[in-house]
């Protein structure tokens, strides 16, 4: 009906244009385009049990294998965790944890022994874990100066206001802010105890623990890579809680100053109050022997970092990784569950479709 009507008008229009003047050609008749007449060809999906059925089965069929794969992968990851907070009086670190505060000058060390029941193959990542540490507190997160860390000289001398109150201590603080000020400073060392009781120190790689971009782009020492750090940081002071200034963090010039990887890792504030941060990497030696063979180990902790005030916990974590990162069974289970649910729903919908699906065709629109 509509098209017939249009056609007729169209005719009149054209004939009119041929008539007395341009007046007709300037008619206000709307263009008869599919867009303007809202007649664009359209795909009009209708959601009924029948039409969505395949989607459910497909989701089910894809998700369950993925879930299984993820679950297996996660299970193959070796992970070992030891708490060395020392809240329990029986713990070797109990003394340290009780006496230690930020202001003490003496070092306190404690040694924990543990055993690995399974060998860790491939590169092993050593993490320190903190609990109840709200690195994501709003004011804590903001308390940093990224341009200072990026090597900006003016920011070095006059840190951002965001760092307050950790921006000056008579002299400007480098690196400023609460994050840097609270940097984790325990030292962890790992020894393998042979069956014949000899302690072999395990080599811990301290480089390569930070993101490449952080180390090379985001964090830079002021005055370029070859500058004398002591001179560059002249006129600044160390963060209040630090023992050593930033340019003495490491002897390796590639890992000193703002590009110290421990600092960089710490500055990447954790998302959740219980977190781990990469501390060292234990590289695999060769393909023959596992990186960390089964057996007993001791962990030597230089206990500098007090967590007592916020009832925090400190952990040391050893973990191998896969393509999916660390051990995490959640995703695999979730995929399997969702896949199964979809499959069941698919079956239910199939049933519903067969029972009620064809009913519509004969029914009418009630008014």
């Amino acid at each position: 009906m509509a098209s017939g009507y249009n056609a007729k008008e169209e005719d009149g229009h054209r004939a009119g244009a041929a008539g007395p003047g341009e007046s007709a050609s300037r008619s206000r008749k709307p263009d008869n385009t599919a867009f303007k007449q809202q007649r664009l060809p359209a795909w009009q999906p209708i959601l009924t049990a029948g039409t969505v059925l395949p989607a459910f089965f497909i989701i089910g069929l894809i998700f369950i294998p993925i879930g299984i794969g993820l679950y297996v992968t996660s299970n193959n990851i070796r992970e070992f965790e030891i708490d060395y907070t020392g809240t329990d009086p029986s713990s070797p670190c109990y003394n340290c944890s009780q006496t230690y505060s930020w202001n003490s000058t003496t070092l306190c060390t404690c040694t924990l022994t543990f055993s690995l029941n399974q060998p860790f193959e491939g590169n092993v990542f050593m993490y320190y874990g903190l609990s109840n540490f709200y690195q994501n507190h709003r004011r804590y997160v903001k308390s940093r100066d990224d341009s200072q860390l990026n090597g900006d000289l003016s920011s070095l001398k006059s840190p951002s206001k965001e760092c307050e109150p950790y921006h000056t201590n008579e002299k400007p603080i480098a690196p400023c802010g609460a994050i840097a000020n609270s940097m984790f400073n325990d030292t962890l060392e790992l020894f393998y105890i042979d069956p014949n009781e000899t302690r072999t120190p395990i080599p811990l790689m301290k480089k390569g623990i930070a993101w490449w971009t952080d180390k090379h782009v985001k964090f830079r020492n002021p005055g370029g890579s070859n500058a004398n750090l002591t001179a560059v940081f002249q006129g600044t002071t160390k963060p209040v809680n630090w023992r050593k200034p930033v340019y003495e963090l490491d002897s390796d010039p590639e890992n000193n100053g703002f590009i110290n990887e421990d600092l960089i890792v710490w500055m990447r504030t954790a998302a959740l109050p219980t977190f781990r941060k990469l501390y060292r990497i234990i590289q695999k030696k060769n393909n023959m022997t596992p990186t960390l063979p089964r057996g007993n180990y001791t962990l030597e902790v230089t206990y500098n970092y007090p967590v007592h005030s916020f009832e925090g916990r400190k952990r040391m974590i050893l973990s191998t990784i896969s393509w999916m990162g660390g051990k995490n069974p959640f995703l695999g289970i979730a995929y399997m569950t969702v896949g199964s649910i979809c499959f069941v729903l698919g079956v239910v919908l199939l049933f519903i479709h067969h029972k009620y699906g064809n009913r519509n065709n004969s029914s009418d629109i009630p008014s």
Partner: protein
Amino acid sequence: MTWTSWCCWTKWRDSSESERKLVSNLPYEGLKPKNQPNRRYAGNAIKTTKYSFWSFIPMNLYEQFHRWANLYFVGIAVLNFVPAVNAFQPQVALIPICIILSLTAIKDAWEDFRRYQSDRQLNGMTCLIYSRSQRSFVERRWKDVRVGDFVRVLSNEIIPADILLLHTSDPNGVCHMETANLDGETNLKQRKVVPGFSSTNSSFEPLNFSSIVVCEKPNDDLNHFNGFLEEDRRKTGFGIENLLLRGCTVRNTADASGIVVYAGHETKSMLNNNRLRYKRSKLEKKMNTEVLFCVLLLICMCLIVAVGHAIWLQTFSSVPIYFVPNSDGTFTSAVLSGVFMFLTMIILLQVMIPISLYLSIELVKMGQVFFITQDADLYDEEKDTRVQCRALNITEDLGQIQYIFSDKTGTLTENKMVFRRCTIMGTEFPHEENAMRLAFLAGEMDTDEEVIYQQNRRPPLFSLEEAQDGPEGANAHLPGHSSLHGSRVTAGAPSSRAFSSPLETEVIPDHTLVQLMEEEEAKPYLDFFLAMAICNTVVVSTETARRQRANERRNSSISWSPLECLEVLFGRGTCFQRLSMSLTRNRGSLSEPIHMDPTDSPVYDVPTFSGSVQGPDEGVNSPSNCRATTGRVQAGSSSVAPEEVCYEAQSPDEAALVHAAKAYGFTLLERTPDHVTVRLPSGKVLEFKVLDVLSFDSIRRRMSIIVRHPRSKEIIMYTKGADSGIMERLQNTFEDRRRVKSQSRDVAIKTQTDLDMYAKDGLRTLCFAKKVVSEQAYMAWQVKRQEAMSAISKKEELLMDTADDMENNLTLLGATGIEDRLQENVPETIQALREAGIQVWVLTGDKLETAVNIAYSCKLLDQRDLVFTFNMENKGACKTMLNGILQELLRNGSLESEASIGLVIDGRSLSMLLDDDLQMQFVQLCTRCRSVLCCRATPLQKSRVVTLLRRRLKVMTLAIGDGANDVNMIQAADVGVGISGQEGMQAVMASDFAISRFKHLKKLLLVHGHWCYTRLANMIIYFFYKNVAYVNLLFWYQFFCGFSGTAMIDYWFMIFFNLIFTSSPPIMFGIMDREVSAYMLLQLPELYKRGQHAGGYRRSTFWIAILDAFYQSLVCFFVPYWTYAGSDIDIFTLGIPMNTVSLFTIILHLAIEIKSWTVVHWVIMVGSVIVYFVVSLVFSALCVSCNPPSDPYWLVQEQVADPMFYLVCILTTVVALLPRYTLHALRGTLVPSDHLKARQKDQLPPHHRDRWLREYRSLKELCASFPSMSSSTVPQDTTQSPSTPTAPLSSSTRVQN
């Protein structure tokens, strides 16, 4: 400063006076401004801009901050500058407000610039002002015109200010003015020179003008103006008929001059210029409650976090290392921190209150309006008009209409008046030939336009088949057919103007009447036709003037067709020649008309009406012969003396009457304020001196013209009016002086019978009467009249009183019946609207019988309806009947209420029913009626009815009308629709939507209304959902960051998210989604019902959406949370998968809701996702330390390179959308909505679909034929005339077919 204060002072002075006095500026020419007598009045320069160049920024900001939404933004931004509270970098928080402000400012600046341009153009136009120094009119610009100046306007020039007309080039002191710019009316209005000036010598000398002009203060009433000229204590009154209005165009008058009385912003047209309409749509009002809910939700969430934060702080016995002290090293107390946290959270969760929703709604409505105006189906070829959306913000109200109040004349009917029959001195002349011609023309149109021209009223004597073998046959071999269409085509401008088509202008005289007139030059007939010809306000204009205008107006919306200018081509012919010419004009009008070549005569061979044409001289028996000869004679004479006359009538009735009179040879040749010239059938030209015109008003319902007969010199008054207005003022026929008066009494009785018959046939009736006034009586009356004329206060009343004094003791001459044709597709439209659950009321000023008849023919009333008629004299009866009906309805309960009840209410009864004490019952009854018809309703009553139902029933109302009398109603209704019709543009000006045909209402409501409502409702719901779903992510995070107000998503991403990534899909959704196709919506009007009961936008829908938003945000938060819990992930790296899954969920949620995917949908949806990734990647590749503390450097890249990211995204999206998707599918199968079914049917192949539609419709009709189940009308035959109930409660007829 001084100037402005002075200006204020003068304004104050001005306003302190009740009238304006002004004198000529000329004696003061060249003096300093302070010595100018008229300095206190506004100049003619206009300034409609809001801002000047310098004040733009401050003023625009000031205006914008008047909106609470902007204040909210500013408040948030300011809050962010308080260090204890701020959630983001302070500068960053300024971004949203800046963007909103600058967007609005750009829009405002653009609008204002355009206003500035048009102002400058107007102010710079040139006009002629008299200059004393040069002793002549010199060219100046409009802005230089001042009050008191003498201005001269030439033909076709636009009048620069309101000018009191003192001189025209016209010897009669008349100036014609076209007011199209002002009110859209295209007919010419006549203005006269102020009395006393017309007689002065032909060259006007402003220097001699020494009077003081006293007039009213400026006001916006275009139809009233009063004042007087005072010279030597002699007062000369003047009125609106002496005022040239700014913005109008002078026509047909070589030049006119006068003194400026109002200038610039004080002119009537400028004062009328405030047409901005702002209506809040129902949906928006409802939405505001939801916004309030959001505010409450926001406050709740902020409170939770604030309390949580305070409690969390108190769990620490000592200060942990990660607590950052204030800059002075102290820590804020837990309670105070909680308070601060509350404010911080408001900043953080600000998006919860969807401020951008308002902007989006505006954009969506702009898009919707665009599509409505682009609809080709709503385009009227004839008038070249599209549908106009004058109110931009109530498009979705069109989808919720429950009651339609319609005017009848011009809305349901064409308002193209066609003279049908007349009764003279008690004798009825049926004009059968004319009727047949009309039927033929109607039939002709039927064939291609499906026009319904009241076929049930086709005269029984002449069937179409008799004259021609049906319209189809006629098409095949009739030149008439092609010619009719040719006329439309060659007319060029597709709009043929009012009262101009051959349909209306040509009347075939009734041969009996013609014979009668021939035999006896009977005075009553002469008087009757004279009255028809002169008792009106029709202006005669010449062809040349018309043509000129036609050319000028080509480009404008109203164009003219030359064919209408063809009137009286063959002026000098005899009466009979002219009569027969009326046949041929059909043909003549098409070819480029005016000069016809005699050789053309064969083409005049139109056999169409040959049988019906009987020129008295040729004799009844030789029709064909007559045709041929007259054609030649006509053509010949026309080439000799082409006299071209066009009639400009203010109402189509008048035009029809003048044309009818012309058909009988009484041709109105000229009308000036002083005289009317008429040519009689004999060829004699009579020039009547017009003594007075008592113009029409709706209270008297009649108009009169008092003339002096040129021969007999007696003073005669001809009166024309509604029968009620005339009959009561006839000579005292019912008194006992029977001998003398019996004849006139008979006439009155017979005429009344005929009138009733006309009314029953649906014709509009007008009575004509005459009165001979004695000199003395006239002189006495004249004095009173003159007093009234010069009165300033109460002038209207006085004038009406004097008119009443004169209009009595009339002698009835006769009456006419004018047919008002039903517009095309009116019955179908009404039926469809009714099926859509809309109650249609017709409110008309017409007579009860006429209205009822029309109501039946347009299927408003059905023959099986139970019709109650309220036609009461007193209130008691009204009340009794009302209660009686209600009780009966209640008693009969369900059974009777199912039957359709019609209500017909007379004007008088209506006013009683609208009284406070009966209102409630009346409303109660109305809700049970299927259709209601109010006759004899005044404009005020119309609007009261609308307001009553709107208030009492809380329903959405739509009023549709075309005339000035519908303006009240249109403004009272929720949605006002104006029909740009024959009666000017007042209705359109007052309306929200303007259409050109009633049938367009169907698509406007059923399709566009439905679409707009569904789209907007869905869009708003989605918008709420979107904001809550996104913002809740931040809320959930608070539980893991010590309620400290941290955002794990970078603020820039949050801004981009709302501004770029997810802004266009909902807008596109709101503009373009199409749940059901237009075809199905038109086929199944029932689908409209959902909108009426707010089915698309329920509170429950809102809460379900909010619940879903909560669920989805939980999923979007916790799936990534559990995936990354305990790992070394950092804040902003965690934020990226959350942000991404949130985007996917939000976009795909919309994808589930989108009902039809066009290319645009795909592009925007896919585009949004692509833009998200591109922008994120680019942003995080560029920003190393530009955005502390969350510098996202390489974050997105890290994530994108991680397979876990994708696994998380997929899982989360699936889990988040699973419930909604499943529910949709289940609902689609188990409880499919009507809309869903319609969509399913729509996807069938066309023939299957149409078959289903047919079956469905026949099923419906079957249901309808059982009266107890019927809710809609079915029957096809309305040919038999329905039995109209007149007695109260009389007709409970239900005719079963």
